[in-house]
């Protein structure tokens, strides 16, 4: 139980996926213009990631590992995640139109989201069992949500500030990210992680 809590805190704060591991920077910068789209994107990430991590864990441990096909993992993971995203997209469109209306535009972006594939690889690297990998995924995706909400709140204020023309847009967002990441460095060493 204690180790599960540590895995969660490590993925959520200490090794925050965006600010410490630099995964998922494209959607982080691309959809953080307003708080609404930031929350929509993060919820879509949580939803898709929980599914994709379980599926890739099962495929890796019950198919690739016993059959000695580990070298195919990059190709298999990309294809499986791509197919899964397509499936979720169609399923939501048909059965949950209300949910599709709010999350629909973010779902196709998931196929090339490096957080999803990155988490699948990290779970293999860390040798997690199924429960641990679910807790890890939850930590990673909530960490993404935290970073998303923080950046979008700051950006709504930056929009009205007077910034040198060369630094408008992405550069100032990166400077913000740098300061946030500096703050997150303070979490390292928490619980000996």
């Amino acid at each position, binding site marked *: 139980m204690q180790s599960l809590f540590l895995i969660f805190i490590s993925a959520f704060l200490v090794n925050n996926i965006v600010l410490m591991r630099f995964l998922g920077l494209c959607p982080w910068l691309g959809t953080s213009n307003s708080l609404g789209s930031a929350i929509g994107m993060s919820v879509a990430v949580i939803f898709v990631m929980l599914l994709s991590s379980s599926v890739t864990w099962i495929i890796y441990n019950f198919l690739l590992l016993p059959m000695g096909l580990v070298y195919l993992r*990059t190709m298999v993971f990309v294809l499986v995640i791509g197919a899964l995203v397509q499936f979720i997209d169609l399923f939501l469109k048909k059965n949950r139109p209300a949910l599709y209306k709010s999350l629909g535009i973010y779902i196709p972006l998931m196929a090339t989201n490096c957080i999803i594939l990155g988490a699948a690889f990290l779970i293999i690297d860390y040798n997690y069992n199924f429960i641990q990998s679910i807790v890890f995924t939850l930590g990673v995706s909530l960490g993404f949500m935290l970073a998303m909400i923080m950046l979008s709140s700051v950006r709504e204020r930056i929009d009205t500030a007077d910034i040198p023309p060369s630094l408008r847009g992405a550069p100032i967002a990166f400077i913000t990210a*740098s300061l946030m990441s500096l703050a997150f460095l303070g979490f390292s060493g928490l619980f000996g992680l």
Partner: protein
Amino acid sequence: MIARRINVWKHFSDGVTTNNPVLVLMLGLCSVIAVSTNALSALGMGIAFTFVMVCSNVLISVVRNVTPDTIRIPVFIIIISTFVTITDYVLQAFMPVIHSQLGIFLPLIAINCIVFGRAESFASKNKPVASLFDGLGIGIGFTIVIFLMGAIREILGNGTICGKMVLGKAFAASPIAFMILPPGGFLVIAFLIGMKNWLSNKGEK
């Protein structure tokens, strides 16, 4: 013949300058910031990326006429991840140190938006030779930026470049350590993009 040569050169130089994947299109930023903690591993990432970019561009361009339009994305995925797997295993066998520094960012080349973008917008519409030079230009443009970032961060954060001391003993004893840590990566890319914006604004005036 001369016209063709100019054309090929243009494909190449566009990738390095006006179409630079990192500074202009702002794609593939994750790996640029993550593995640029020192100049050598940044160079390793640049070379691995260029290899995947060139090979997949050429192969996609060779098979472009026999690939039905509806299944082109899965075909791209299979071709690109094949070359990523080859690079992964070759690096693991011959350069284990660089391989461990690149970590999961090596397999993540497989879904890099730059590689996909060029496959979709260039290689699937052009001849193999043009695709080769396009891939080479994009790859070298990426390598220059990532190496520059690695060098800046290593000099400021460690006082060395490729392991050699450059700023003297006094600086190396107390360097700006945060440049090697994650915040430094965000700061350096912010100022590199800002500098490129400043230069292009100045050029327009």
